[in-house]
């Protein structure tokens, strides 16, 4: 795997644009087209917003982002924080709302993450290499193999 980015910034809403834009740039470097890279940008934005709102919940902290790439196979974004664990609903996504009455504001970010990426896996309270207990979100995006020329 080739490391494309490593970034640590304060977990604040006004910093999320930096994570998101770096992720989009890395996705472009990995060969994604503009629409695909935009979806990666969205997923990273949503995932970081969840960390700010739910893991740190108003408390100071940092988000670490590492982006790696296996050419023509996988693009991986790993977000790490030291906030509190929070509940991530699993199972299949609910059907989209068909009426205004069915509209809900909750869960939109999670839906975007799951739709934009091939896989998203949350782990809470896991041991980092330096001994810290962290939360870790690993988002992967499968890449189409490059056709042989």
């Amino acid at each position, binding site marked *: 795997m080739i490391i494309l980015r490593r970034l640590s910034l304060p977990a604040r809403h006004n910093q999320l644009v930096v994570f998101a834009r770096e992720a989009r740039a890395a996705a472009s470097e990995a060969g994604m087209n503009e629409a695909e890279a935009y979806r990666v940008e969205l997923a990273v934005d949503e995932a970081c917003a969840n960390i700010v709102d739910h893991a740190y919940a108003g408390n100071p902290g940092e988000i670490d982002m590492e982006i790696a790439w296996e050419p023509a196979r996988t693009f991986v974004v790993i977000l790490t924080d030291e906030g509190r664990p929070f509940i991530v609903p699993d199972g299949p996504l609910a059907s989209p*709302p068909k009426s205004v009455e069915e509209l809900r*504001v909750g869960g939109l970010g999670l839906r975007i993450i799951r739709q934009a990426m091939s896989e998203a896996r949350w782990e809470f309270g896991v041991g980092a290499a330096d001994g810290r207990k962290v939360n870790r979100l690993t988002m992967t995006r499968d890449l189409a193999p490059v056709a042989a020329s």
Partner: protein
Amino acid sequence: MDSATAPEFDNALKGLQLEGRHKIVLDFAGLDYMSSAGLRAMVAALKEAKAHNGGVLVAAANDKIRDTIALVGFQSLFPVFDDILEAVDSL
């Protein structure tokens, strides 16, 4: 529009609706990014508008904004019009 900037959008929509304006066209020309924070403001505005026989439509959104709306399955609830006058006429 992300979680840092969407509150301003949300406040603007709430301000309009407090004035009794419930037929709203969102002119998204020039908007090149929108996360779920913007969608949440749109959902709140649509619910309030519908409660007053109004509506919220989107005009001039680029492909990325359309994609954000489609990712959460809101295409049928927030029709996107190419032209703002076309959207106004349909309200």
